[in-house]
């Protein structure tokens, strides 16, 4: 701790103190990648996706999505320099397209993020159950394992214990090493024959292309968090944009390469094998090159990465809920923290309650934890994020039409317009292919419920915003500004107190 009395007056203690935490490109890239959970995507989402959709063009889909997201990021990162609360899609949408659409988007985001969280419980249960019986010879039901993880997450969430940064870093690096090592082992496997199917651009325009694109988007979720550091980066104009492009490129190369190597080494019937072997496909195709030790390490990392992702994501959701509670977009109770720890307790409890209900419902109905919970949850969340990215892209155009200062044509209009067109096409394909994505008949319940639930929440949020506009204009005015804004009239104790007096008068 620095003290005023003991230090000689420097040029500016204040500048130094505030600059101490400034982040560079590497730190931001690292933060984004840690949300990406490489093994979960490469060993979890990709093989399950192969089995459910029967589509193999996943590598080219990763590349295509990366290109679209990079174009989108040009305007997105530019707008982040001009607004508060960057990092939350609804902040962009509130300022670019109006607050009602922003509130609708904030609720959609809450659902999408919760879907990822719930997916991770199912994924852990489904993946850990066979491993536990293999390692320890104990046969435990998936939902018991899911509940253990859920309880761990819930307790750590209320206490607001984060996974230590160094632990996360070690896990992430280890995961990336495992993905690369297994992929190279695939290449040297006797069964390997370089397949062109994962890279066939024709799949991007063929049947089921929307399903592939959503699966790929799921792998990139977290990239949008880079802009959170707009205010805290060393060079606001360069650090965040570079970090975003680097992260998107790294994710595309890593995932695209790993998926290509796995499919190439899996032999003729990769879809059949994916169905039979599930997430083990990733480990099995490389196993003859690597010893059983490597396999165990890979499996163990798979589980730890899921747990780490679970805990981190839970914290993100409870903070997001806190922010919405502070703004008055959600009930004020969510805007409170535990004074002694600063933990956003109510948001955490609400997320845990939702997770518990989901696990129980899936267990009671006997639904498949891998396909129905992990894959459906993950890809439905991916669809939600795709919707949000698309609306945000339009919002960027809207914002810069009103505030053209400080950015050139390419950042304001050029890239955002191209990005928006591409994103709208992707969204259309995604919704059109939703049945393929989920592996169900078109028009069947899941294929209707998933897009409909987003639509219903979006409209409900929109209506709520309109209600706020007429009944609580001071709250309405602060929508999209976030918990860090002094002008937000939301649920902090002081502003809530001021707002409540108005009611009593």
């Amino acid at each position, binding site marked *: 701790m620095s003290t*005023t009395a003991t230090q000689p007056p420097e040029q500016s203690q204040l500048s130094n103190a505030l600059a101490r935490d400034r982040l560079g490109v590497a730190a931001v890239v690292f933060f984004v990648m840690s949300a990406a959970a490489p093994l979960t995507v490469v060993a979890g989402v990709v093989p399950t996706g192969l089995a459910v959709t029967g589509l193999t063009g996943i590598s080219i889909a990763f590349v295509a999505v990366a290109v679209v997201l990079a174009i989108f990021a040009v305007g997105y990162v530019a707008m982040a320099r001009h607004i508060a609360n960057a990092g939350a899609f609804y902040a962009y949408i509130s300022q670019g397209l109006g607050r009602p659409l922003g509130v609708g988007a904030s609720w959609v985001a809450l659902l999408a993020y919760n879907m990822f969280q719930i997916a991770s419980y199912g994924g852990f249960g489904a993946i850990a159950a066979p491993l536990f019986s293999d390692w320890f010879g104990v046969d435990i039901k998936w939902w018991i394992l899911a509940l253990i993880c859920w309880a761990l997450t819930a307790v750590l969430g209320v206490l607001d214990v984060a996974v230590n940064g160094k632990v996360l870093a070690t896990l992430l690096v280890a995961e990336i090493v495992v993905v690369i090592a297994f992929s190279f082992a695939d290449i040297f496997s006797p069964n390997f024959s370089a397949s062109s199917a994962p890279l066939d651009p024709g799949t991007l325009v063929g049947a089921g292309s929307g399903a592939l694109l959503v699966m790929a988007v799921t792998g990139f979720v977290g990239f949008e968090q880079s802009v959170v550091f707009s205010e805290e980066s060393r060079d606001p104009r360069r650090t965040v944009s570079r970090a975003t492009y680097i992260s998107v490129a790294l994710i595309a190369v890593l995932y695209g390469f790993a998926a290509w190597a796995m499919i190439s080494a899996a032999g003729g019937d990769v879809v059949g094998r994916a169905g039979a072997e599930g997430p083990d496909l990733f480990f099995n195709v490389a196993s003859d090159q690597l010893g059983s030790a490597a396999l165990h390490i890979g499996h163990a990392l798979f589980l730890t990465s899921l747990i780490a992702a679970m805990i981190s994501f839970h914290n993100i959701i409870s*903070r997001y809920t806190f922010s919405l509670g502070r703004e008055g977009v959600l009930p004020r109770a969510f805007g*409170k923290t535990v004074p002694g*720890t600063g933990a956003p307790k109510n948001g955490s409890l609400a997320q845990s309650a939702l997770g518990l209900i989901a696990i129980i419902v899936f267990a009671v109905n006997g639904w498949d934890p891998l396909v129905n919970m992990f894959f459906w949850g993950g890809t439905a969340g991916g669809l939600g994020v795709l919707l949000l990215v698309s609306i945000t892209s339009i919002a960027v155009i809207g914002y810069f039409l009103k505030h053209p200062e400080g950015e050139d044509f390419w950042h304001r209009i050029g890239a955002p317009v191209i990005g928006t067109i591409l994103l709208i096409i992707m969204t259309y394909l995604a919704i059109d292919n939703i049945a393929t994505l989920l592996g169900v008949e078109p028009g069947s319940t899941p294929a209707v419920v998933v897009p409909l639930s987003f639509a219903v929440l979006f409209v409900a949020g929109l209506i709520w915003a309109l209600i706020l506009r007429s009944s609580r204009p001071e709250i309405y005015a602060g929508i999209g500004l976030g918990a*860090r804004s002094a002008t937000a009239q939301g649920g902090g*104790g002081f502003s809530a107190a001021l707002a409540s*007096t108005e009611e009593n008068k």
Partner: protein
Amino acid sequence: MATSPQLPLADDLFLTAHDSVKGKCLLSPATLGLGMAAALIGELVLWRRLDLIDGKIQIIDDRPTGDPAATAVLDQLLREGHHRAIRDWISFLATGIAIDLVERRLSRAGLVQRQEKRGLFGSKVSFVPTDSMIAGWPATRIRTFIGRGEMLDVPDLVLAGLILATGLDQHVFVTLDARGRSQLFDQLKRRLPAMLHELVSQTEAAVGDAVMARRA
């Protein structure tokens, strides 16, 4: 009922932030730091040394106040003339400077004492109220005034605002009934001067920011 003596704003907030039974701090170190930083700036506003306008600090009088803690902050403000954003100053003083100044002032007055707690991983030094009764003084005073339906003075209004902004109200104001609460809130709304209102709002935003950024 006699009311207990009123201390400088930051001292009152420091005491309020400590449990009146065990003396334990009720706030996370980051939130306590933000509260202390805001309270010291608030003291300088009450001393008529600063104006807070449009998120910026303006020095209107550079004479020392006679109080070492507030004067130390004023000196720092004078040295760093190019930085004026209230938010930056709250963040800066919250890095430990403000807590340190307030702890020294309180221990000079004999109201807090150093406590060393030996734990598994080395010892932790903190300052706790010398008497568990002392910690309860400021909150009791506010509750007494409100209970009698009397007006709070400006320093106590700022104190109440900062109690709400830091989340201490969950400890301090739980015993207020609905009528007392609405009376307090009404006083804040009507009688807290605009500059101090801004200070409290900025503090609340900084606390929210700290929660979002996991610093709280």
